[in-house]
């Protein structure tokens, strides 16, 4: 009986008998690299040793762990690439620890040098491990099943019986034929004294699947990197009725890969004809639609499409997404000098699910002082008990604005970039800009300031936020991902296994035919399932399917 200790240390192998023969054979059923052994004192021994270490299973394991660990801060700490404002808030809140964490790239984990080190090491390990494995497997695919071991009783599965009808040759041939029909790879060999053996092997596809998985994983990582280098995304807010063309300057924000040049941006123009949103009774959105006209290339024919969430426009090498929408209130402002700014507008950003939206309108050309308006646009305004305006419905059924007016210097000349959605608070703080009034306005209501300025809320427009993406390697990523799943299914569902049969002629004195048949087998994984299979095969070969075998 197998000892308890064996159970514990080697659960995968408890089904195999303790003998080393069986264990070695099990390992020879995969292309797993041998544990690193120290090469003898040759020159470059350290390099060889290092390489063996890097491509060993153990290192792959450690690197996988490091990868999992390394990703964690990227998911728990704010990341610059996702949300730079949150990073700033975090840094402000943690003045001592923050900068240190920043130095360790903890706010930019996925671009950090140490993160790159982990995945490059893993990648090299993967390739370094794969190349020899592919060679070994290619050899195994062409090789014949190995010779039968001398003693079957040391194999995880073994049995024997006698046959009195035929000689070893015939029985072995019969067995080989049966196994071949079961799609085993079979070879028959003659041993001394008229003994015939059959070696059979099956399930090569398991290792093929495993290699497919690792190769596809490698390809996927490469394709992801290529997409990052040669791809780009740009986002832009487009008002109803307006349009844009695909040039870097037009985007509100543009994130190119390191190898993207201005020329590589495909020409393409579009106009947003009409944005529309529909809502359920409870105020959750049921659909967003952007009706667009576009041209591919510099002067292609005009085409028409409807953008929806989950339904981007896909044209040659580009994808155009509808990511969000919002309102842009329009105002007519008359400054004290008599100058009229008619229907000025700017996109306001939605703050909640009922689209209370915040934004700012800046009039640097107003005289004698620059004028700004900021505040809230409420598509369906209602007053709370405290008298504060809030929106209760995401569609513009009863729009109102709650605004502040400012006069003074907007600080636009300072050169520092300003958010288009808010006024520069520093200018307020240093007194260059002053709040001169506040008011809630309904449609076409006006507000007159002390200096004669009038602000009229004239209505609203809708806008859509669009994103243009290009990722030249995306299709490769998808195909590789498909191969990953296929490879996994093959390597998880299939079992590589070997079977041997030895037919020995019996004592000649005891009758014409008395052939002793011994059978042995082993499987690399899921020995329990193989046990059943082995039993079935044994019964089939004996040609007495109904009766179980009597002894070992």
């Amino acid at each position, binding site marked *: *009986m197998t000892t*308890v200790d*064996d*159970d*514990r*240390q*080697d*659960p*995968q192998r*408890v*089904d195999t008998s303790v003998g080393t023969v069986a264990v070695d054979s099990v390992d020879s059923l*995969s292309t*797993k690299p041998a544990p690193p052994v120290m090469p003898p004192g040759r020159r470059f021994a350290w390099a060889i040793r290092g390489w063996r270490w890097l491509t060993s*299973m*153990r290192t792959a*394991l450690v690197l*996988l*762990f490091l990868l*999992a660990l390394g*990703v964690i801060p*990227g*998911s*728990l700490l704010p*990341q610059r*690439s*996702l949300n730079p404002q949150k990073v700033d808030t975090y840094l402000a809140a943690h003045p001592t620890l923050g900068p240190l964490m920043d130095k360790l790239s903890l706010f930019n984990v996925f671009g950090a040098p140490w993160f790159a080190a982990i995945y490059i090491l893993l990648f090299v390990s993967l390739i370094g491990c794969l190349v020899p494995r592919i060679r070994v497997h290619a050899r195994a695919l062409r090789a014949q099943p190995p010779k039968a071991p001398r003693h079957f009783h040391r194999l995880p*599965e*073994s*049995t024997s019986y006698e046959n009195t009808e035929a000689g070893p040759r015939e029985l072995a041939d019969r067995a080989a034929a049966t196994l071949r029909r079961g799609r085993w790879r079979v070879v028959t060999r003659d041993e001394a004294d008229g003994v015939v053996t059959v070696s059979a092997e099956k399930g090569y596809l398991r290792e093929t699947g495993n290699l497919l998985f690792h190769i596809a994983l490698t390809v996927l990582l490469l394709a992801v990197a290529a997409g990052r280098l040669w791809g780009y*995304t740009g986002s832009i807010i487009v008002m109803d009725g307006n349009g844009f063309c695909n040039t870097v300057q037009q985007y509100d924000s543009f994130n190119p890969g390191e190898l993207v040049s201005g020329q590589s941006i495909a020409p393409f123009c579009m106009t947003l004809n009409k944005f529309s949103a529909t809502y359920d009774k*409870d105020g*959750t*959105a*049921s*659909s*967003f639609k952007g009706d667009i006209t576009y041209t591919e290339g510099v002067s292609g024919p005009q085409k028409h499409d409807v953008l929806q*969430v*989950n339904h*981007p426009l896909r044209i040659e090498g580009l994808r155009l997404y509808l990511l969000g929408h919002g309102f842009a209130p329009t105002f007519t402002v008359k400054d004290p000098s008599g100058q009229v700014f008619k229907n000025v507008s700017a996109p306001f950003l939605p703050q909640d699910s009922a689209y209370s939206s915040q934004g700012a309108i800046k009039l640097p050309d107003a005289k004698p002082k620059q004028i700004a308006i900021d505040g809230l646009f409420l598509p369906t305004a209602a007053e709370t008990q405290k008298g504060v305006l809030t929106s209760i419905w995401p569609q513009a059924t009863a729009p109102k604005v709650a605004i502040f007016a400012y006069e003074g210097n907007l600080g636009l000349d300072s050169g520092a970039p300003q958010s288009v959605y808010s006024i520069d608070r520093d200018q307020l703080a240093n007194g260059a800009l002053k709040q001169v009034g506040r008011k809630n306005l309904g449609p076409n209501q006006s507000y007159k300031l002390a200096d004669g300025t009038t602000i009229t809320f004239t209505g609203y427009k809708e806008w859509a936020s669009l994103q243009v*993406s290009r*990722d030249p390697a*995306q299709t490769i*990523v*998808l195909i590789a991902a498909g191969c*990953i*799943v296929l490879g*996994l299914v093959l390597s*998880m*569902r299939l079992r590589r296994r070997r079977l041997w049969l030895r037919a020995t002629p019996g004592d000649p004195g005891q009758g014409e035919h008395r052939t002793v048949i011994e059978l042995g087998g082993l499987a690399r994984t*899921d*020995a*329990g399932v193989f*046990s*059943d299979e*082995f*039993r079935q095969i044994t019964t089939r070969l004996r040609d007495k399917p109904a009766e*179980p*075998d*009597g002894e*070992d």
Partner: protein
Amino acid sequence: MGTTALAHLSNTLYAFAIVAYAVAMISLGAEYAYGRRGRVARTSAVAAPEAKVLVGAGGPDVTATSDSVTPPTDDDAPRDLNLAERFGRVGVALLILGALVHAAAVSIRGASVDRVPWGNMYEFTSVACLVAVVAFLVVLIRQPKLRFLGGFVLLPVVVLMFLGGTVLYAQAEQLVPALHSYWLAIHVSAAAVGTGIFLVSSVGTILYLVRVHADKVAVAEGTEPSRVRSLGSRLPSAASLDRMAYRTVAFGFPLYTFGIICGAIWAEAAWGKYWSWDPKETWALITWVIYAAYLHARATAGWKGNKAAVINLIGFTAMIFNFFVINIVVSGLHSYAGLN
């Protein structure tokens, strides 16, 4: 029947399922507690390390392990056995009943909202638990002697379903437009199935570790493992628990991989990028990498057994963390939890 009435019916059935599972849990727990070491320990000890003997010996023993009915009565302690046996049968019957009622609850929930019934955390929990129960039933068909482990599988299921029905509960509602996609059906169901299967695997793994410990104690005390009258030594052999843990991961891992890939395909259509390091995605990747490490560890000398088992549990912890902490505490693109 109106939509609200359907939703109510679904909730009632959900509650019934919890009750059925809870009673099944107690019943199977009782089988575990009353079952004399005789049957349980013997069948399980025979099962794995001596598979060779089994095959050789053939006959009734072989049918005992592969048959879905219980093995022939043991002569050791027939009275106890019968009691345990009865508890076991009642437990499995309740388990099947619970699963049927649960499946009905899930389907009716789907009908009441006219979409797939896994759009928020409550619904996801419900589906994942159903999968765990079904996965365990499948394990039972293959390895019937593991029946009395049902209590251990049902404990987390009952707790999760209780949390799901109380803390995580969300009214039957429509979903935001980003969720109007058949990818919801595919991506989330693959994730839910993976979750349920990994749950079963982690239970097997914990029991494996308990058993290994019990064996160690037994060896230290110089007694045969089956003689020790501790709960641990009544568990099936370490080998069969380990095999159960491995098989479930081997089945769940490709599915989970498929689920992540479907998520990426969906993200490509909905968010403009197939991968954006959203916290939820990131933790799915962490979970995936850890389970990959588990599979690797099992093939790495020096990492088999205990260490691999611990990796399995870390993987499951990462998945649970993703579900509870990331969904509730950390906001990202995936904020569809349905909680306010």
